[in-house]
């Protein structure tokens, strides 16, 4: 019977699986991971924010007499989450690929997005470096397509050389296409 054959398949694709479903045509393994330094940079940014948070918590703690830790404890939990856990998760969920003349950018811990921009639609390419990114030798690659909405796709956390190389790749592909 058909049902017996279908049964194991149904188990393999449970609809109510709360785990992260691998998106789209290809599992995350054919994606390239970002530069590991990006994780450190996210930690640093979160750390700066955490310091502000901790200072605030300390002031609140001193202002409220008694009950030591009533502010500190939850704030420490939040800090641990944003400094240690979140950058790790964000790093793990991000990836890109340049296969088949398409730029694919996958990102998002809670809100997942998986974008594909074929090289043939790229209008121009930006390689940006913020002050922190410069310190870490990282860069953000942004490709712009024609149009107003959702018209630019940016990929942060690339090594600067990688970003420049990718820019050359995409540009070369555009040139090849139009000739």
């Amino acid at each position, binding site marked *: 019977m058909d049902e017996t054959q279908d049964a194991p398949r149904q188990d393999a694709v449970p609809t109510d699986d709360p785990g992260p479903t691998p998106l789209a*045509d290809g599992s995350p393994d054919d994606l390239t991971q970002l530069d590991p330094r990006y994780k450190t940079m996210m930690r640093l940014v979160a750390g700066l924010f955490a310091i502000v948070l901790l200072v605030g918590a300390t002031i609140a703690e001193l202002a409220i007499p008694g009950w030591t830790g009533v502010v500190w404890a939850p704030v420490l939990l939040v800090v641990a989450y944003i400094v240690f856990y979140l950058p790790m998760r964000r790093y793990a969920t991000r990836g890109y690929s340049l296969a088949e003349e398409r730029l694919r950018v996958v990102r998002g811990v*809670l809100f997942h997005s998986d*974008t*594909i921009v074929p090289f043939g639609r790229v209008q121009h390419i930006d390689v940006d470096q913020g002050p922190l990114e410069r310190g870490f030798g990282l860069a953000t690659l942004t490709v712009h397509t024609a149009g107003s909405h959702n018209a630019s796709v940016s990929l942060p956390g690339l090594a600067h*050389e990688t970003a*420049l190389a990718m820019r050359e790749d995409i540009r070369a592909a555009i040139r090849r296409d139009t000739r």
Partner: protein
Amino acid sequence: MTPEPQEAKRTDPRSFAVRAVMMLFQLVIPIAIASATILDDGKVTDLVGYFLPLVTGIILLNVFIAYLQWTKLTYTVGEADIRVESGVLSRAARSVPYERIQDVSLEQKLVPRLFGLVEVKFETGAGGKDDLALSYLSEDEGERLRELVRARREGEEIAQEEGVEAKPAEEAEVLFAMGPKRVFTFGLFEFSLAVVAVIGGLAQQFDFLLPFDLWDIDYWEERIAGQGQWLSGLGPLAQFAGIIFALLSLGVLGVATGLVRTALREWDFRLERTAKGLRRRRGLLTRTDLVMPLHRVQALRIGTGFLRRRFGWHSLKVISLASDTGGANHDAVPFGQMDEIAPVVGVTGFHLPPENAEWHRAVSRYRIDKAALATMILLPATIVVAIVGSSWMWLAPAVGLVYTLAEQWWRWHHDYRALGERQLYSRHGWFSPSLAIASRVKLQSVEIAQGPIARLRGYASLHLGLAGGRLRIDGMPVEEASRWRAAICDSISRTDFSELLDAPGAPAT
């Protein structure tokens, strides 16, 4: 890895002077006004003593920053692209390949003009701020860049332009026109509740300007009663009639506004097919004349209204690249029957969904989740307000809840999507349902997005990058979304975007 073929150039040094002059206008005048008002009754010595050093300091600082920015902004005219690098603290490098530059425009505002400088804009179709602009270069350099870019864009385009010019513009075929009668009918449907609300609000705000009190029931009662003496005896009934009368007059006002606005905008509407594309002329007092090049049409949108659908009235909008005018949406047929719209659709190179199109609707889980989410928020809100709030306040969240549930129910029955061989269709909306027809080749990017609930329940939204508009399809099963994406990406990869744009008159595939 990074070949730097040509030397990086800076913009004209005088542009720094232009910035300074413009900044003076922007900065000094407000500061002067502010200080004048603040130190209205203060002594002049105070003004000189405190404000002058402060203002000078701010100006010097800004001049210094402008100088730094100028030294850091360089552009390189390379073999294959133009690159601009900028930024003092954070560096940005933008590269625009020649193949992507649609046009180079030179713009002269007043101050740069005095200095003999131009702002050079490289239009890529990205529209607005994402276009590359160099401010400011000398006029000669601007002209040189424009010539250079045009030369690189090969001789083919020039030949085509000549071909277009050669054809006489007169032999235009009228595709759609609206006479006074049609405009009048259109105006009746343009009755806008918003306008009525605004007028009602204004009447309340500025009622002292009116010779009578709009909201005075007694006044209306008197008016009614004055016309027929017998009414005066009928107290409550006359009051009721008064309210009806007030509402009616607001309604008449709303219809009249709709008529006038529509007539002003749409008078003598003509859509013609010319060699350069669709030409639209309309308007009573300000007559606008717009040409929509056919090869720039990205997608179509056929819309209708809650009421006008009953009478078969639809509108056709053309979504095109935004570089011609400010708005990216162009009304091609603002108000017509489907059999009038169909030929226009044919001219644009698109076609209406075929009979055998496979229509699918959003998964039921998506609608249920949306309705459940609304209930989870609005139902407790209703209860809380009913207990805490004053008498009728709870109606607001309750109405919101009913509205959302009704909308989801309606859209579950009416929102459909279909993927054709060359086009994709999305029918959506509640009060003003519309059908979007997009060409698969002309899409820019495809994104599959999932929120936490969507991931848990196994559906996704498909965001399609469309030049000049937005197109998203919600509540697709994940597998289908990725199948659509693969199919669309295949279509996109086959043609380069510049080919689509560089072939004027070619039918949109």
